[in-house]
């Protein structure tokens, strides 16, 4: 069965409908990327999936005993809060020292345990968040714009890390990208939101696209792909509306 399944899910944010009528599911081991412009309901959908936002309508079904690892969009740690990486990872539950070492190593930052959270660089911080999410061996890893604030090589390295983690743990990965043009090459499916699901599909292999070369050259080692999609179509006849409007590109 699916890890998470939604039927006719409608969500409100600040009294407004942020997302309507979403039928979504993710299976074990799958990598799904959600893209969409700002305010398209991406974060609302993730928050509903982790249980932080109650549906205004529709239904969310989680596989019984589902373990979710969540990497939030941003985590503002107040400078008045002293917190080592080790203590952070022990929240809210104490973890075994060897499990912490393992998770930090899997996330690519084995040496950071005693550092203060506020002293970490953007890339180190994201990897620590990832390590924390991995600790309880999640069935599903959810990342909300995890590469925001990282530069291009930093994002590419982070995506490669996610792929490595997925191969290691075999967990499903659901992530959001604020950048319509950059999604992970390894995505099994891309879900495009704009207040509703406009379209869904596999990113096809179009490695020779000039836009891709212009943006990334060949320095990302296959971690990034280009996904192009027009948002100027009308939304009342949604469903198949995007077909024929978007091109998908990917490098080989």
């Amino acid at each position, binding site marked *: 069965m699916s890890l998470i399944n939604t039927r006719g899910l409608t969500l409100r944010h600040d009294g407004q409908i942020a997302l309507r009528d979403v039928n979504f599911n993710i299976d074990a081991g799958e990598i799904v990327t959600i893209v969409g412009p700002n305010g398209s309901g991406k974060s609302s959908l993730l*928050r509903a999936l*982790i*249980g*932080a936002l109650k549906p205004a309508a529709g239904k969310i079904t989680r596989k019984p005993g589902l373990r*979710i*690892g*969540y990497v*939030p969009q941003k*985590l503002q*740690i*107040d400078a*008045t*809060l*002293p*917190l*080592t990486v080790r*203590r*952070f990872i*022990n*929240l*809210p*539950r*104490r973890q075994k020292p060897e499990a912490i070492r393992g998770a930090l190593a899997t996330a690519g930052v084995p040496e950071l345990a005693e550092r*203060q959270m506020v002293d970490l660089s953007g890339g180190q911080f994201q990897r620590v968040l990832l390590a924390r999410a991995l600790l309880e061996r999640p069935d599903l890893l*959810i990342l909300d714009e995890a590469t925001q604030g990282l530069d291009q090589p930093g994002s590419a390295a982070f995506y490669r890390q996610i792929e490595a983690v997925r191969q290691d743990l075999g967990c499903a990965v659901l992530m959001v990208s604020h950048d319509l043009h950059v999604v992970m090459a390894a995505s099994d499916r891309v879900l495009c939101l704009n207040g509703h699901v406009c379209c869904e599909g596999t990113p096809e292999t179009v490695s020779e696209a000039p836009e891709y070369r212009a943006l990334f050259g060949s320095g990302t080692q296959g971690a990034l792909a280009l996904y192009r999609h027009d948002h100027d179509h009308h939304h009342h006849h949604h469903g198949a509306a995007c077909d024929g409007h978007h091109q998908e590109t990917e490098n080989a």
Partner: protein
Amino acid sequence: MLDDFILRAALAGLGVALAAAPLGCFVIWRRMAYFGDATSHAALLGVALALATDLPITAGVLLVALVMALVISTLSGRNVSADALLGVMAHSALALGLVAVSLLPGQRVDLSSYLFGEILAVTRFDLGVIWGGAVAVALLLAWRWSALLAATLNPDLAQAAGGNPRREQLILTLALAIMVAVAIKVVGALLIAAMLIIPAATARPFARTPETMAFWAMGLGAVAALGGLLASLEFDTPTGPSIVSIAAGLFALSSAFSAALPALRRRG
């Protein structure tokens, strides 16, 4: 032994300082300083309510502080420019409380004892109430410590890990109301927030984890309470303000220490 009013005052001050310190850490980590102000200023309305209805003062203050804290946490949860809102609430609560007390018929109320506390007049019964409240606050915080920390860092993160950030917020709100109710006798409505915030802020440069910060804050709060009591006896100054003055002095030292720390490390 508890016949000695100075000993009772010392114990009352210690009880408040020890419970206020870890609670105060959460107040500054969550940037709730104004929240503490508004809740403690509302204590005066609670005094008016208690005097008007013959309730015990502590019960009146607890009730009003709790209502105030719940109202604020509901309103600021919706993010209605929380800073300005809390500023309005804090000062309005104080003004309304002063007006309400003065309107009570046939009472000559010594306002200053409620505004600044009267720790030297603490009775054995007061002492029981103060330590009962302090222990309740300490137990609440110890019980929920990790969940509170997780919710403080990021509510969604806590939720994904199976927590309930809204419940943790309510628990902090309840702890704050209890703290206000028991501290009004010791430092008064105006200075309760100071006992929450100053020792916690003073402890920050000495700590590498949340727990060490809370313990440092407890120690510093205790030093301020006892030092302030002794100073007030020595110099015949009001005790509550003397305690807060000592706390402020410690804060200044700690800030100087933390400013000098990088230079010291370079040399060492």
